[in-house]
């Protein structure tokens, strides 16, 4: 357009007035250059300076790591009976990223509208089951306060119910639960069916929270959907890109109450441990993990490894193609337990019957192979149905929480009680090894013995009296050797062994030796069983008593400890381990519930391997004397446990009747019966066959009464069931 350049000279019209247009165009050109510079600068800043960051953002947009969960391993009993399996079930979730945005230019809330549409498809408006289940899921996800606020802000009136709060227990010096205090908390009534607006508000809130972490992570809104319904939903929701239908198998514990303490249950990752799980490769925040029992302790083996694939998605979250390597999931391993399911049933039934008869609030029975530590059965009553953790938080669950007997606790490994006379096994072995007595040493029971009062040693009135259980019946046992003393469970004999008897110039084991041997036999530290929640109580010694009571250890303390009263507390499993050690000749095994870990293809990953904790430093023949005492308790005419005999096999055992103090604040004393006697726990621990033991059983009934009257018959029936039905004797092994 060069023709304009020389136009000015040819111009012959009216003189061109210098007007504002001239400086406007000039100004305009400067603006043009400035704008060009500005836009270039901005482009350079965005594309070159920050280009890499934006490239990463773009990749974050389009690549999505999709996790394919591995099927969780199942569990079998020792004989191959399936105990827990996976039931197919479907979960409906929404991807926050794929929901429409709330466009501020329009009146309607697009997101809420889409959620409502989804909920209509799920039938949440009509089907009360769906509405209730969604309410529960949202309650679990949002928590009590957020749930209530969200629903009420949506203009829905909530009903409330009161449930007992967390139980706080104070323990007395024996560790017995004394007073339980519990405040009630007000929670929304989950049996109230929420109207649509309430559910939409809850889901929107959950999406909002879920989107804060990763907006491409699906937020579950409904689970426990069966296959038919899931397919219907998939078909109906084709136009709703945010809806995901995933198969999330539900754990089905086939025998419920029978094995719940062993198997445990699954649940969402606890909020407090989220970081830890994430660090261990739990990338899906909705994954359910083992929270108790074997589900917890074998979580890694059962879980397997989830598979991953990188997919390129478009804005609607549709998978366009798979990028790079696909990692297939590795299915979880299966567990084969040492448990005999039929034995477990026998134990469960017999113990339940005994509890009904005695009114004991809780009770335990455990069976173990004393030769290797394999747990053959373990029952803690009351029990609970672990399936309810997979299902809804309904009345069953609330009842479980409210139950004063706390069924969720596995008392076999989680309760601490005085072992009573079962501890005499330890005392006698220690006394024989330390040469306090010999096999034929005779100690006379001539009635109660007295320890002089420390401050008034010459005043017999002030002396402390120690009696044997038989004295209350007007019987004295007279001269006894160690076998007879074990058979009769005579207390005087063991007082002598524990604390000595100065008037006869008899020197006992004393606190140090008692404590040392208690620890050697497996008291104190937890036994190391492969179940969570096991406790142990420190074995008391002089220093412990000084710290706790500001008093020194007395001979009386040694007396009490020698017969399993006083300060020493143990779990039923520890008592069983100590008796099994006697049965097998002096080896302390760690109990194990799991026998084998088998991968999904049947390959053996881990076979059973007995875990020896220690060999007791006992001279030859000493354990045989203690074993003989246990034989005599069952098989001699004088024995306390004659009721434990099983036709066809020789049983040996030891009873226990442990006094305990349940402090009643109003009385400022322990609970006592009319005659002033303390209540007692009933204990019996036995093994069979005597010659070559293959099963050891402990039975414990809290506040159950006499060991010989209550715990012995239960154990007898368990042993009978074992030898008749589960592992019948062949001709050769029958004596």
């Amino acid at each position, binding site marked *: 357009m060069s023709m*304009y350049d020389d136009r000015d000279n040819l111009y012959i*019209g009216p003189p061109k007035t210098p007007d*504002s247009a001239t400086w406007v165009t000039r100004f305009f050109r400067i603006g043009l250059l400035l704008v060009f510079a500005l836009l270039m600068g901005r482009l350079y800043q*965005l*594309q*070159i300076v920050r280009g890499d960051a934006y490239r990463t*953002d773009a990749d974050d*947009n389009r690549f999505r790591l999709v996790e394919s969960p591995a099927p969780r391993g199942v569990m079998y009993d020792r004989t191959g009976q399936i105990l827990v399996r996976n039931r197919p079930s479907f979960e409906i979730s929404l991807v926050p990223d794929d929901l429409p945005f709330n466009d501020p*230019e329009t009146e309607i809330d697009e997101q809420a509208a889409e959620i409502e549409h989804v909920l209509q498809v799920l039938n949440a408006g009509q089907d009360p089951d769906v509405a209730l289940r969604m309410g529960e899921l949202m309650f679990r996800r949002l928590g009590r306060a957020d749930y209530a606020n969200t629903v009420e802000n949506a203009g829905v009136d909530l009903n409330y119910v009161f449930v007992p709060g967390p139980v706080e227990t104070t323990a007395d010096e024996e560790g017995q639960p004394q007073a339980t205090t519990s405040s009630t908390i007000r929670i929304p009534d989950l049996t109230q069916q929420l109207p649509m607006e309430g559910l939409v508000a809850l889901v929107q809130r959950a999406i909002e929270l879920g989107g804060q972490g990763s907006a491409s992570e699906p937020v579950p809104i409904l689970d426990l959907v069966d296959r038919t319904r899931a397919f219907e939903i998939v078909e109906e929701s084709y136009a709703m890109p945010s809806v995901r239908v995933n198969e999330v198998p539900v754990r089905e514990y086939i025998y419920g109450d029978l094995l719940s303490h062993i198997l445990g249950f699954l649940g969402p990752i606890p909020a407090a441990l989220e970081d830890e799980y994430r660090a261990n490769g739990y990338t899906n925040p909705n994954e359910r993990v083992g929270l108790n029992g074997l589900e917890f302790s074998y979580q890694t083996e059962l879980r397997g490894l989830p598979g991953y694939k990188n997919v390129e998605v478009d804005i609607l979250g549709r998978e366009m193609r798979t990028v790079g390597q696909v990692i297939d999931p590795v299915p979880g391993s299966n567990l084969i337990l040492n448990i005999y399911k039929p034995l477990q049933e026998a134990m469960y039934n017999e113990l339940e019957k005994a509890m009904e008869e005695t009114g004991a609030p809780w009770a335990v029975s455990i069976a173990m192979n004393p030769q290797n530590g394999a747990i053959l059965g373990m029952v803690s009553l009351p029990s609970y149905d672990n399936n309810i953790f997979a299902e809804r938080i309904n009345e069953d669950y609330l009842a479980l929480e409210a139950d004063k007997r706390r069924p969720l606790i596995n008392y076999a490994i989680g309760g601490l009680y005085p072992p009573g006379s079962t501890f005499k096994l330890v005392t006698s072995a220690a006394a024989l090894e330390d040469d306090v007595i010999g096999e034929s040493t005779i100690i006379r029971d001539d009635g109660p013995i007295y320890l002089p009062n420390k401050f008034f040693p010459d005043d017999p009135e002030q002396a402390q009296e120690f009696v044997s259980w038989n004295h209350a019946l007007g019987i004295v046992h007279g001269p006894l050797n160690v076998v007879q003393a074990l058979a009769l469970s005579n207390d005087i004999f063991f007082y002598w062994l524990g604390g000595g008897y100065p008037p006869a110039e008899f020197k006992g084991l004393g606190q140090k030796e008692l404590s040392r041997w208690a620890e050697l036999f497996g008291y104190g530290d937890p036994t190391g069983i492969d179940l969570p929640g096991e406790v142990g109580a420190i074995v008391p010694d002089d220093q412990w008593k000084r710290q706790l009571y500001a008093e020194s250890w007395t001979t009386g303390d040694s007396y009490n400890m020698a017969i399993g009263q006083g300060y020493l507390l143990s779990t039923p499993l520890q008592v069983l381990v100590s008796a099994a050690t006697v049965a097998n000749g002096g080896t302390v095994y760690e109990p194990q519930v799991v026998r084998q870990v088998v991968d999904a293809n049947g390959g053996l990953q881990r076979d059973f391997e007995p875990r020896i904790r220690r060999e007791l430093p006992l001279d030859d023949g000493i354990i045989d004397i203690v074993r003989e005492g246990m034989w005599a308790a069952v098989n001699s005419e004088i024995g306390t446990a004659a009721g434990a005999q099983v036709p066809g096999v020789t049983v040996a055992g030891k009873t226990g009747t442990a006094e305990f103090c349940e402090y009643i604040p109003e009385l400022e004393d322990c609970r006592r019966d009319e005659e002033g006697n303390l209540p007692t726990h009933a204990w019996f621990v036995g093994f069979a066959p005597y010659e070559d033991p293959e099963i050891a059983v402990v039975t414990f009934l809290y506040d159950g009464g006499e060991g010989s009257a209550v715990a012995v018959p239960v154990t007898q029936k368990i042993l009978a069931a074992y030898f008749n039905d589960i592992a019948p004797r062949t001709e050769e092994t029958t004596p």
Partner: protein
Amino acid sequence: MLAVLTLIGIGIAMIYSATVTTIDLSDYWLRQLVFVGLGVVVLIAATFFDYHYFQILAIPIFLLFTGSLVAVLLFGVNQGGSVRWISVGGVLVQPTEAGKFLVIIYLAWYLSWFHNEMGRLPYLLGALALLLAPLVLVYLEPDLGMTVTFAFIGGVLILAGGVRLWQIGLMAFGALLTLPFLWGALQGYMVERIQVFLNPQDNPGAAFNVNQALIAVGSGGWLGRGWGYGSQNQLHFLRVRHTDFIFSVIAEELGLIGATIVIGLLLFVVWRLLRIADHAQDHFGRLIALGVAALIFFQALINVSMNLSLAPVTGLTLPFVSYGGSSLISMMFAIGLAESVAIHQGRTEF
């Protein structure tokens, strides 16, 4: 001309890339090609039509335009919350698109006709009234982008039309006074968009488009990801990628180099238009060329700025590049108008 055609060519290629993977839109690049054909006819016709005749048509144009805007408000078709289209025999027409050059024509006529009287206040107010009448109507639709565009074109023309310095001062003062009222009168969606621009983190949902555009632009780098390989574009993370955000597609797929070429071409076109204005012999022609320059400059600036998060989101398209028949054809008509100014010099002066 060549620059314009290059821009259009780039536009069609990018529209193809932006829409071919979306079934509903996959023939848009073809439709744009048809519009280009129409546009070229319009351009050539406008070029050879002597622009001086528009002086006669100026008053009817003004009446027709304001009339159609009133009609839009009364009978218009509501789309996405605003009324911008009117149905003429079944075809949706957006009068504001044609309005771009209509405003230029009648304002240029008024300002050149009363050129010598512009120093007097009543005539200036008359010009303002001519500008404000359609402005208010467009604002009521509501269409913030167009309102601002008209205001800019009008402002440039009135400035160039021969106002005195003291008048500019007065107008600036008046504008300052009305500013608070303007904010109050801004319609809800406009306030929201401006707030999203100022504080994007407060409204992540609404800032989504802007953010995705930034990611698209930023991931382009020097040479871009290649035509048809922009992930933001191809996987539809960019919304309205064939119209409002076409520049992001260019920046993503063609990189800094491609984006610079596009901006450069656009500004080159404006530069040429200013040259036409400088060389125009009469006020009318000069103001028309200037108006067209202002129109293209402003739309390009606002659209690119919006793609680069320098300005709030408005519905303004990128001249010649964005998809859209009425926008393209009216732009090409505007260019034709300016070309007409260029070639019809001197004849009618005698």
